[in-house]
C-alpha cells in the first residue's frame, strides 16, 4: 500500500517568532553579529591572499600533483561519507528501534570512539596492521613470507580510520533524532502496512534528515580539513598541496589561495544542503513516552549484538589496548607533575571553550530564527571548513594586526614597554577554539531547535509567559539533549585540537595534544601513547556525563 513519503511530518514555513525589540533581544543580536565578524576575520585574511598572483606554484602543482590530489580527496570524502552514514544511522536505528542482548550497554558504549583522536587511531591502526606490525609478522612467521606482506597504507585504510572515529557524530545526532520521533509515527507507518524497513526508509529516515545531514557534514568537513591523519599514511589530499605551498615553497599566499578553494567548496555544499531543505521544518507529534520497538528474531538480535560489538572492538577496545601496551612499555617516566599539569590545562581549556562555544551557538541559532534572512548567521560555521593550521595562522594574523595597530600604540602612549597582549593569551586561544568549533555546536542545537513546534512558545505567550520564562521553561528543557551533545562534541574536539593550541597558547600552557604532537614529530609514536590515553580518558568523562543525563 503506497504511503506518502513523510505522512506525519508537518510542513510549515519558518515561523515568525514573536518579534519584540526588547533590550535583551538587541543584546543577543549584537553578540551574534560580533561572533560572525570574528569568524570572518581569519577567513578574510585567507581570501585576501588572492591579491597577489602566485602562478609559479600553481603551474607546478597543476603540472604534477593536483589531479591525483583532487581524486584522492574526493575518494576519501565519498568513502568516509558513506561509511559514517552506514555505521552511524545503522547503529542508531538498532539501538533505538530494536531489542537485542546488550542493547542498553551499546547505547552509550558506541559513543566512546569519539574520544579517540583521528591521528591517534591512525598510528595505532598502522602500528598493529602494518607490514612490520605484530599481526603481519605473526602471519609471516606461521605461514611463510607470502602471507602477511601487505602494505595497508591505502585509501581503504584511511577511510576506515576516519569512519571509526567520526561515525559517533552521526550516531549521536541520528539517535537523538530517532528517539525524539514520536512512536506514533512508526506505529502509524506499520498500521498503514509498511514493513520495518519501509517504516525506516520512508518515514523515520526522512524525518531524521536534518540531524543526519548535520552529522555527516561534520564528519566530512573534518576529513576534508585534516592533515595529521592522512600524513601518518602518507596519503596525499588537497591539504597536502596547502602544506607543500606553505612549508615547502614558503609561499603562504599560495597556501591561502588553495585553502580558500577548500572553503568555497564547503560553503557551496552547506548552502546547497540548506536550499534543498528549503523552508520545510520537521515537527513532531506530541506523544513521546511510549517506546515502540520492532520485534526481531533471536538470530537477528544476536547479529545486531555481533555488529555492535565488532564496531566497538575495532574503534575503541583495540586502540585503547594498544595504547596501554605502549604506555606500559614506555610511559612510566613521563608520569610526573608536568604530566598532570598537561591534563589540567587540557581540561580547563576544553571546558571553558565548550561553554563559550555552545553559548554563542545558541545565540546564533536564536538570531537565525528571529531574523527573516538568517543566512548571515550561518557564516559563523565556516571556521570549521579550513584546515586547522590555516585557520590558526589566519587568527594569529588578525589578532597580531589588532595588537600592532591598537594595543602597541596604546602602550607607547601610556609609556609602557610595548608587548603584544592578544597573541599568546588565554582569551585569544579560547577565541580560536570557538571560531573553529561553532559549526560543531550548531549541528546538534539546530536539530533540537527544529523539533520545537512553533505552537509551543506561541501557546506559552498566550498564557502570559514573558521572554525569560519562555527560555527557562520551554526552550532550555526542550533543548537539553542538543545542548549536552553540543558541549560534549566541542569539549572533545577542543581537547584534540593541535595547530591553534600550538601557535596561540601562552608560555607553558602545554596540553596533552601538544605533548602528542611533540612525540609524533620525532616519530616516537609509542611515547605518545600515554598522553593519548589520558586524552581518551579525559574525553570519556563528558561523554559519560551526557549519557547519564540524557537517559534520565
Amino acid at each position: 500500500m503506497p504511503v506518502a513519503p513523510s505522512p506525519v511530518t508537518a510542513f510549515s514555513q519558518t515561523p515568525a517568532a514573536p518579534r519584540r525589540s526588547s533590550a535583551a533581544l538587541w543584546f543577543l543580536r549584537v553578540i551574534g553579529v560580533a561572533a560572525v565578524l570574528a569568524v570572518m576575520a581569519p577567513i578574510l585574511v585567507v581570501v585576501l591572499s588572492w591579491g597577489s598572483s602566485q602562478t609559479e606554484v600553481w603551474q607546478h602543482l597543476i603540472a604534477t600533483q593536483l589531479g591525483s590530489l583532487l581524486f584522492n580527496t574526493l575518494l576519501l570524502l565519498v568513502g568516509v561519507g558513506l561509511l559514517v552514514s552506514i555505521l552511524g544511522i545503522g547503529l542508531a536505528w538498532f539501538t533505538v528501534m530494536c531489542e537485542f542482548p546488550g542493547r542498553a550497554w551499546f547505547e552509550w558504549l558506541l559513543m566512546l570512539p569519539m574520544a579517540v583522536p583521528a591521528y591517534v587511531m591512525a598510528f595505532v591502526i598502522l602500528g598493529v596492521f602494518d607490514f612490520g606490525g605484530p599481526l603481519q609478522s605473526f602471519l609471516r612467521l606461521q605461514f611463510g613470507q607470502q602471507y602477511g606482506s601487505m602494505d595497508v597504507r591505502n585509501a581503504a585504510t584511511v577511510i576506515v580510520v576516519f569512519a571509526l572515529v567520526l561515525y559517533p557524530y552521526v550516531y549521536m545526532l541520528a539517535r537523538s533524532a530517532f528517539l525524539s520521533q514520536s512512536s506514533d509515527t512508526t506505529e502509524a507507518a506499520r498500521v498503514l502496512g509498511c514493513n520495518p524497513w519501509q517504516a525506516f526508509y520512508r518515514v523515520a529516515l526522512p524525518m531524521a534528515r536534518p540531524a543526519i545531514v548535520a552529522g555527516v557534514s561534520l564528519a566530512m568537513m573534518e576529513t576534508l580539513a585534516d592533515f595529521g591523519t592522512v600524513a601518518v599514511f602518507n596519503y596525499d589530499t588537497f591539504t597536502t598541496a596547502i602544506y607543500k605551498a606553505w612549508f615547502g615553497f614558503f609561499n603562504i599566499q599560495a597556501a591561502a589561495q588553495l585553502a580558500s578553494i577548500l572553503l568555497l567548496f564547503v560553503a557551496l555544499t552547506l548552502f546547497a544542503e540548506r536550499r534543498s531543505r528549503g523552508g520545510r521544518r520537521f515537527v513532531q507529534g506530541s506523544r513521546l513516552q511510549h517506546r515502540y520497538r520492532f520485534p526481531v528474531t533471536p538470530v537477528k538480535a544476536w547479529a545486531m549484538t555481533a555488529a555492535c560489538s565488532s564496531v566497538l572492538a575495532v574503534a575503541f577496545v583495540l586502540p585503547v589496548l594498544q595504547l596501554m601496551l605502549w604506555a606500559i612499555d614506555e610511559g612510566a617516566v613521563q608520569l610526573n607533575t608536568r604530566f598532570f599539569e598537561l591534563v589540567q590545562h587540557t581540561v580547563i581549556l576544553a571546558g571553558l571553550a565548550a561553554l563559550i562555544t555552545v553559548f554563542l551557538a545558541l545565540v546564533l541559532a536564536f538570531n537565525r530564527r528571529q531574523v527573516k534572512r538568517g543566512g548571515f548567521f550561518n557564516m559563523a560555521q565556516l571556521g570549521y571548513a579550513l584546515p586547522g593550521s590555516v585557520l590558526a595562522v589566519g587568527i594569529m594574523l588578525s589578532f597580531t594586526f589588532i595588537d600592532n595597530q591598537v594595543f602597541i600604540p596604546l602602550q607607547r602612549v601610556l609609556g609602557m614597554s610595548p608587548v603584544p597582549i592578544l597573541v599568546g593569551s588565554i582569551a585569544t586561544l579560547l577565541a580560536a577554539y570557538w571560531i573553529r568549533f561553532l559549526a560543531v555546536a550548531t549541528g546538534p542545537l539546530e536539530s533540537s531547535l527544529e523539533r520545537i513546534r512553533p505552537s509551543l512558545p506561541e501557546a506559552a505567550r498566550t498564557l502570559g509567559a514573558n521572554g525569560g520564562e519562555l527560555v527557562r521553561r520551554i526552550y532550555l528543557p526542550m533543548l537539553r539533549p542538543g545542548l549536552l551533545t553540543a558541549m560534549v562534541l566541542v569539549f572533545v574536539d577542543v581537547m584534540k585540537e593541535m595547530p591553534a593550541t600550538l601557535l596561540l597558547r601562552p608560555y607553558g600552557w602545554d596540553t596533552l595534544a601538544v605533548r602528542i604532537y611533540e612525540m609524533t614529530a620525532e616519530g616516537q609514536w609509542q611515547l605518545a601513547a600515554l598522553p593519548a590515553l589520558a586524552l581518551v580518558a579525559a574525553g570519556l568523562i563528558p561523554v559519560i556525563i551526557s549519557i547519564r543525563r540524557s537517559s534520565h
Partner: protein
Amino acid sequence: MMRNIALIVVATLVLAACGNSEPPAAKGPELVIYSSRIEQLIKPIFDDFTKETGINIRYVTDEAGPLLARLKAEGENSPADMLITVDAGNLWHAAEMGVLQPVQSEVLTNNIPPALRDEQGRWYGVSIRARTIIYSTERVKPEELAGYEDLADPKWNGRLCLRTSKKVYNQSLVASMIVALGADKAEETVGAWVNNLAVAPFASDNKVVEAIDAGQCDVGLVNTYYLARMLADNPDLPVGLFWANQAGEGVAARGTHVNVSGAGITKASKHKEDALRLLEWLSGPSAQYDFAHLNQEYPVNDKTAPSELIEQWGSFKADTMPLSEAGRLQGDAIRIMDRQGYR
C-alpha cells in the same frame, strides 16, 4: 540543567585558579624563545643555562612554518629573542624573511665550522644531523654500498625504502645532490630511486628502520639519531649504518650530507646581549654534551665527543657544501621530486 551548567562553570573556574597557582616567574632578566625543537630536547639545556646565568627562559614550541609566520607578523613588536629550528632550509628562509639579525662573536666562530653557519651570522648550527644510508645486516653487505646516487642502481630494484619527500630533510638532501651533481643528474637519480622503491614512501624515519628490520626492504636513508635511538632500545636490531660518499673520485667522495638544527637572534630582540650569551652557551661544552646525549646527534663543536652509542659508527667525512645552499635550492628540490613522482 541550569544547576549542571553552574556546577561545570564553578568547577572549571576552581581548576583554572589552581592552574594559575604556579609561582610567577622570578623578576630578572628573561629571554623568550620560539622553538621548533621539542620541549624534551631543549628544556634540560635551558635549565642548565638558567642555573648558570640567572637568566630565565620562556618558550613556545611549534612547527617552523607557523613560528616563522608569527615572527614575521609580530615584526618589531615580537617578544621573541631567539628562533630555534631544525633544518638549514628553515633557517635560510628565516634569514631571507628578515626576521633574524646578524651577530658576530669569537666564541661562535671558534666553536662552529663555517659550513654550518650563515655567512652573515644570522643563524648558527648548534647540532649536526647526518643523513645517510642504512641497510639490513642480514641481506646486504656493506661492500655493495657507495653513495646516495648509487642507490639509483637497478640492483636495488624493489629493495629501497624512503621517507616522504614532504619531509624537509629529504628536500635538503636532494638540494645537496643538485649542488654536487647538477640538476639533471640529481633529477635522474631521484627518478631511479622512485623506480627502486619497495613500497610507497613512509611518514617517518622510524618506519624506514622498522621496514628494513621487518624485511620489507633492504636499504634506506635516515638521519642517524633515529637509528641510534632504536639501537639504544634494541641493540640486536639487524640494521647497519653506512657512511655515504666517503670513497671514490671527485663528487663521489664529497662526504655524507649533513644538516643542522640551529638558532638565530631575532631582529626584534630587546635583550641582544643575553640572547647572544644563550647562543654561545648552545655552542659550548655543556649544551653540546646534551645535544649529543639527549638525542644522539653529533656536536657541532669538535671539542665535544659524540655519545658512546654513536661512536661505534666511527668518524666520517661530511659534505662541506654551505648549508645555505640547501635553503636556496629547497624549492628546486621539491619540484624535482614532484616531477619524478616521489611522494
